[in-house]
């Protein structure tokens, strides 16, 4: 494969970092020093002498036909080098993760506000923006479809709703946005008695607003035209190979001519799993023959990536008078927005994980994903499970209240454990310490009763209260989340590991395409290589498409799957090295191991330099977790998931019931991680995930009116600040999953799922209000 003709400033280099630290240690990040020095180059920092700036013209309308586009006025602006529309897309006009339904640039119709319509490349970003504003697009504006349930043509449900909801003829004829109708996926789970009855029944409808990933590093990258007619793309992304597949198809180029390298990524949380500026920058670079940089500003970022699906969920829980769950019925609607993105998989998780970590004999779940003219929704940390956890955990509290039972008691009574059967019929074949997670939380000390300092009250530094009307509440929630890709997807990762002696010192190099987005996978790769190869110095090769796919950095899967691949490649390298040593020493391989830069055995310590000389031992291999299978379309039964992660939260809040202000006083979390490969990073994931869950509970929502985003800025879309985040108590359990490398469990998503429902439960307890919608706003608390 040809190397790039020229390398931009900021192109990633090999990472080394501090030496030492195998698995189970708080090894430091290999990119940490670069990051604190300000020398770590993110996608938006890439730079080339003769580069142009690309910008995107987006639709102001959520639904409209494009009558015509006149690019002439833009082309006439001095400094402009290219203006492109869908006519300039040489390959497939549409792309997508699961369905190729999203135009690279709008073709005749725009289906959401912010849909890309045209591109401009110019020598200054302001020139490009000014030129884009001069493109004349003539729209015939249509009325948008903005409600997922209406889009499916269902009647609004009511409390006696019993039948399966079917997509009606009406829906298909009058409201479809795509030729195949508005239904993206309907998942059904059916177990036990279809018409169960119970002593105590609670029925409620819940809503979850649209959350944004709000990663801080904007969508960005640099495309460099190559001499072979192809393109090098340096980009901040989550899954290089799935990007490459889609870019190749849009450009009409083979994979050899579309080479991707991961630029520095400023957070992702699911929002970079779909393409953003990838194809656009390549199109502009190929057209102009110049490097093209694209970097969204914050407002454009709100339009430039998919969000978390808003959900409407009706749940009915039935239990015996003693508190044993008899049945759960759930209808879950995810608003997928204008394009499918990963909606089918989100529906898959939402449905199959949709009643929480409880054992229930009779289950009836319908989970739908719909097309509307709202912004497209797709992957975000927790992926379908965050929404349903608000519903099922609220239901557990409502049921506990109806039974006069303690909410934790009710949960423990019905909790799943190892050997339990999930609603997919899968037997939980590794530890499931749900009860222990909850009991440990209960046993933790409570924060002080009342704040001594007014700054710690609701309203904080603005001094809105002196304590009158402030009520405290405590809430618990527990969650579980499938780890890695499910439902029969061939989920693998590729690792290339090389061991050699450089300057007298053994060095291992790990090369994978697994995206480092901040979570610390690069550290984990080094730790595994150190442990498996007995060396201190491990170099992390830049992440690129010169090695096979690692799969996505999502679904809490990289430590498991890419970690598994690195471990397996190291074992293969080790096997070769030990075989050589066996030959040299005449000892059986079985008596030899690698330790501290040497081959060691009984009375033997042979430095690697003597075994390897000038040779490098290298192995590349693909590694898969055990296969999953598709679920039955009528019953939802099947071995759908390879692993589950479990976490629980206790939230303590103070609520100013007069002003409707919430202060989260403390968050406590327990999580089973199987094996903490890097304990410090595990804690970091729990703390960060907790913050995002808290944000959705009390502040974060993209507000949409008539298909238009009302708050695309950090002024109006609020994420937790350091003032909003309380101190945390955390206990990490390590019950090994015998099926996973080192027994580890994926970590990143579970705490994001249980955190918000715990906060909601605490606010409910403080106020006595039912609170069925998140984020909770002051007006929900004051009734104004």
């Amino acid at each position: 494969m040809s190397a790039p003709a020229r390398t931009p400033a900021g192109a990633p280099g090999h990472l080394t970092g501090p030496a030492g630290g195998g698995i189970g240690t708080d090894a430091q990040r290999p990119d940490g020093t670069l990051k604190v020095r300000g020398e770590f180059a993110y996608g938006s920092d890439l730079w080339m002498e003769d580069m142009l700036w690309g910008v995107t013209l987006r639709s102001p309308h959520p639904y409209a036909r494009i009558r015509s586009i006149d690019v002439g006025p833009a082309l006439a602006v001095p400094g402009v080098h290219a203006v492109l529309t869908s006519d300039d897309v040489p390959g497939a006009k549409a792309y997508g993760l699961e369905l190729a339904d999203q135009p690279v640039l709008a073709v005749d119709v725009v289906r959401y506000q912010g849909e890309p319509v045209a591109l401009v490349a110019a020598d200054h970003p302001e020139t490009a923006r000014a030129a884009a504003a001069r493109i004349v697009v003539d729209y015939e504006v249509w009325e948008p479809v903005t409600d997922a349930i209406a889009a499916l043509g269902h009647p609004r449900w009511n409390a006696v709703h019993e039948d399966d909801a079917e997509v009606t003829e009406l829906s298909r004829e009058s409201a479809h946005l795509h030729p195949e109708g508005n239904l993206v996926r309907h998942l059904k789970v059916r177990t036990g008695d279809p018409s169960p009855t119970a002593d105590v029944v609670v029925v409620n409808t819940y809503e979850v607003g649209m959350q944004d990933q709000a990663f801080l590093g904007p969508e960005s990258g640099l495309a460099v035209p190559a001499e072979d007619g192809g393109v090098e793309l340096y980009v901040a992304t989550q899954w290089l190979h799935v990007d490459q597949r889609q870019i190749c198809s849009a450009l009409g180029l083979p994979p050899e001519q579309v080479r991707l390298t991961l630029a520095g990524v400023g957070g992702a949380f699911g929002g970079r799993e779909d393409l953003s500026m990838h194809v656009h920058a390549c199109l502009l670079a190929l057209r102009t023959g110049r490097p093209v940089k694209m970097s969204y500003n914050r407002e454009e970022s709100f339009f430039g990536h998919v969000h978390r699906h808003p959900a409407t969920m009706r749940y009915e829980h039935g239990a015996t008078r003693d508190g044993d769950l008899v049945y759960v019925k759930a209808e879950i609607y995810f608003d997928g927005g204008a394009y499918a993105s990963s909606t089918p998989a989100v529906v898959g998780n939402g449905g199959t994980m949709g009643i929480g970590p409880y054992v229930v004999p009779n289950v009836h779940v319908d989970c739908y994903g719909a097309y509307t003219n709202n912004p497209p929704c797709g992957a975000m940390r927790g992926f379908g499970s965050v929404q349903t956890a608000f519903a099922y955990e609220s239901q557990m509290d409502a049921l506990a209240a109806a039974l006069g039972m303690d909410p934790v008691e009710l949960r423990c009574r019905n909790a799943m454990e190892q050997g339990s059967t999930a609603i997919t019929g899968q037997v939980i074949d590794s530890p499931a310490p749900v009860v222990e997670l909850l009991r440990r939380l209960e046993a933790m000390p409570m924060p002080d009763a009342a704040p001594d300092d007014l700054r710690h009250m609701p309203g904080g530094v603005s001094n809105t209260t002196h304590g009158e009307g402030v009520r405290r509440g405590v809430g618990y929630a527990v969650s579980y989340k499938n780890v890695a890709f499910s439902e029969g997807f061939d989920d693998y990762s590729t690792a290339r590991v090389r061991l050699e002696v450089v300057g007298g010192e053994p060095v291992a190099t790990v090369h994978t395409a697994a995206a480092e987005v901040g979570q610390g996978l690069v550290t984990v790769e080094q730790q595994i290589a150190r442990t498996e190869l007995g060396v201190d110095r491990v170099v992390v090769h830049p992440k690129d498409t010169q090695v096979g796919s690692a799969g996505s950095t999502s679904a809490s899967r990289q430590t498991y799957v890419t970690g598994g691949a690195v471990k397996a490649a190291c074992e293969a390298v080790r096997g070769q090295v030990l075989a050589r040593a066996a030959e040299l020493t005449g000892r059986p391989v079985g008596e030899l191991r690698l330790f501290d830069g040497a081959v060691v055995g009984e009375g033997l310590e042979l430095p690697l330099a003597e075994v390897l000389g000038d040779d490098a031992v290298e192995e590349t291999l693909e590694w898969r977790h055990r296969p999953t299978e598709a679920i039955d379309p009528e019953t939802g039964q099947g071995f759908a998931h390879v692993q589950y992660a479990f976490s629980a939260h206790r939230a303590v809040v103070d609520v100013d019931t007069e002003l409707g202000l919430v202060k989260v006083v403390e968050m406590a979390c327990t999580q089973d991680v199987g094996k903490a490969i890097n304990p410090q990073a595990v804690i970091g994931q729990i703390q960060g995930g907790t913050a995002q869950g808290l944000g959705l509970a009390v502040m974060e929502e993209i507000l949409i009116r008539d298909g238009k985003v009302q708050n695309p800025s950090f002024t109006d879309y609020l994420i937790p600040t350091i003032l909003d985040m309380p101190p945390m108590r955390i206990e990490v359990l390590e019950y090994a999953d015998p099926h996973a490398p080192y027994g580890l469990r994926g970590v990143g998503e579970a705490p994001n799922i249980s955190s918000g429902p715990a906060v909601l439960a605490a606010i409910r307890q403080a106020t006595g209000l039912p609170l069925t919608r998140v984020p909770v706003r002051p007006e929900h608390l004051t009734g104004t």
Partner: protein
Amino acid sequence: MRLTCTVNGSPQQVDDVWEGESLLYVLRERMGLPGSKNACEQGECGSCTVYLDGTPVCSCLVAAGQAEGREIGTVEGMATEESLHPVQQAFLDAGAVQCGFCTPGLLVATDDLVTRSLAAGAPPEDAEIREALAGNLCRCTGYEKILDAVKLAAQRMAAR
């Protein structure tokens, strides 16, 4: 227009600066100092925090022309060739860096806070740290380890 100022102790001069360019843009795109970050360019996130004549500011809100003749300090000026600034080391040791996009701005804001607090005679307390860093968003860490890092830095800087 031409802009002349001092950045991290070195005199800088750049030509052809546009009226509308921010100090952040000039640092990043014209001076080859992309360490200061651009998470919002609206004054809401603090990722672009730099010292302007010794006071931390959001450089995305400072028009380039306002920097004329003034002294600017960025994250790139904190460490020496050989060793990190104690605030930088503390962020690493405490595990306060994940994606790191918030880090440059937080380092400058922390350095300012700790320096001021120690000059006033005591390391900053939790409530002060929270107030001082309320303008610096971080999406990855949940802030706990940032608090730890600030306290660690203060402890080490006080001991020097």
